[in-house]
């Protein structure tokens, strides 16, 4: 365990070495949150409720996006694809750790620093725009929310690893990740807006993918907008995606590593 802890510390140091880039990336995150807050405030105006969301629930959704984008979707494992294509993976392979442990540690470092700074940014946004956001009334909601966040974090980690190991077979890794890991992920996970404001047909299609279970449903749980039977159903579907992602990742990794030629490495 100590070596994985060391990887986390080194990853944090690496991130903080390039302080200017890091600060700009945080500023970008801040701007995105401000844009969403202002947009929804403009949409609501004097209205109390739109599209099934009270104003405080929508503000909680926006704040939820800011935190979960850093916690659930914060990742370094995208770099694995580049390592595969450049051959640099050889260097990582000979080190005394499990590949999945290495990338999970790197991800955890990214998530840790992302969440800390996103909380500061949210505090600033809440103060600047005087936002009232929804807090769950039931204590059990906090526990449920935490459980769902953990499940979705591991599911996304595995989905990200699957996208990266596609690098064993294709050179178009960046295009694949851009389409599935950025465009589809952003819209279908609800990390831009709640997906249930879209037409029902689209929501039904999105629900067939793992993406809505990463951000959209956890925030719906926070907002106490789901009944217990629906929460159970979503819990089972999230578990299904977690196990399926694990199985697919293991299969792809074991096949891919046999094909790995270490070109350029």
């Amino acid at each position: 365990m100590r070596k994985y802890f060391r990887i986390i510390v080194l990853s944090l140091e690496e991130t903080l070495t390039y302080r200017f880039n890091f600060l700009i990336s945080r500023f970008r995150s801040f701007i995105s949150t401000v844009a969403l807050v202002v947009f929804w405030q403009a949409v609501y105006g004097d209205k109390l409720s739109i599209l099934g969301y009270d104003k405080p629930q929508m503000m909680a959704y926006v704040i939820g996006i800011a935190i979960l984008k850093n916690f659930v979707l914060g990742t370094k494992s995208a770099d694995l694809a580049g390592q595969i294509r450049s051959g640099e993976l050889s260097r990582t392979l000979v080190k005394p750790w499990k590949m999945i442990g290495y990338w999970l540690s790197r991800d955890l470092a990214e998530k840790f620093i992302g969440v800390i700074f996103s909380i500061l940014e949210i505090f600033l946004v809440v103060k600047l725009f005087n936002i009232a956001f929804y807090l769950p009334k039931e204590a059990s909601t906090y526990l449920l929310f935490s459980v769902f966040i953990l499940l979705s974090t591991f599911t996304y980690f595995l989905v990200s690893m699957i996208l990266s190991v596609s690098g064993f077979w294709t050179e178009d890794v960046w295009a694949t990740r851009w389409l599935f890991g950025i465009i589809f992920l952003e819209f279908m996970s609800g990390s831009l807006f709640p997906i249930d404001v879209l037409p029902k047909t689209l929501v039904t299609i999105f629900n067939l993918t793992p993406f809505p279970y990463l951000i959209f449903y956890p925030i719906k749980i926070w907002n106490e907008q789901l009944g217990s039977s629906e929460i159970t159903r979503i819990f089972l579907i999230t578990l299904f995606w977690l196990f399926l992602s694990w199985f697919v990742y293991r299969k792809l990794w074991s096949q891919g590593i046999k094909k790995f030629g270490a070109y350029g490495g």
Partner: protein
Amino acid sequence: MVSGLAAQSQLLTNRSGILFITGKVVRFVLYFIFLYGVIKSANGLTGFSLDQAVLFFLIFSLVDTLAQFLFRGVYRFRSSVVSGSFDLDLLKPLPALFYPVFGWMDILDAITLVPFIGYMAYFIISHGLAVSLISLAGFILMIINSLLIAFAFHLFICSVCIITLSIDYLTWLYRDLTALGRFPTDIYPNKIRFILTFIVPVTVLMTIPAKALLGMVTGWSLFVYFAFGIVTVYLSLRFWQFALKKYSSASS
């Protein structure tokens, strides 16, 4: 010829091209459906009707895609400076800024632009959004102005790259800041609107062309905005000249 070579290179890997075009179309369509649904439910957006709010989004997409199409070279400039291959570009019989800014026109954006402009023209005509021929002329002038400002932004980023060798985050910061113009900047509080108008001119870049088309900005104001665009380009060119003198060709 430079654009042709860039296009050939980009189309070499068909699969990537298909994935990128699919992504761009999906992103546009889903945003459009989202905005249409939300603003329709809210009966408008801070004084703008549904059609007008959608028009702001369409014009944002137009300016953004045009800038991506024309100035994509900036995203590759850092590697050119770091590897030293910028030296070779400087030897070519073209202005020094040509390759950094225009050296990699994005053909994939050009492919999506054609149907997009067709749809935008249809939307404007079918919803009667162009007030008059004068407003249409004002709109075209302001689109040209937006491209001038976008050019100035990109050239500024290239200049910073020569001095600091670090631009990746600046280009993404530019994208995030301009994304604030996805909706009319009138929705932002006064202090932010001031910043978006006078410090980072997102308002002039994205909102003013739509307002010109809707007849909300006319006459001398258009010329003031155009003069602002010219001054921005001038300052950016001066900074580029300054940065070029700092270029040490250290990597080659």
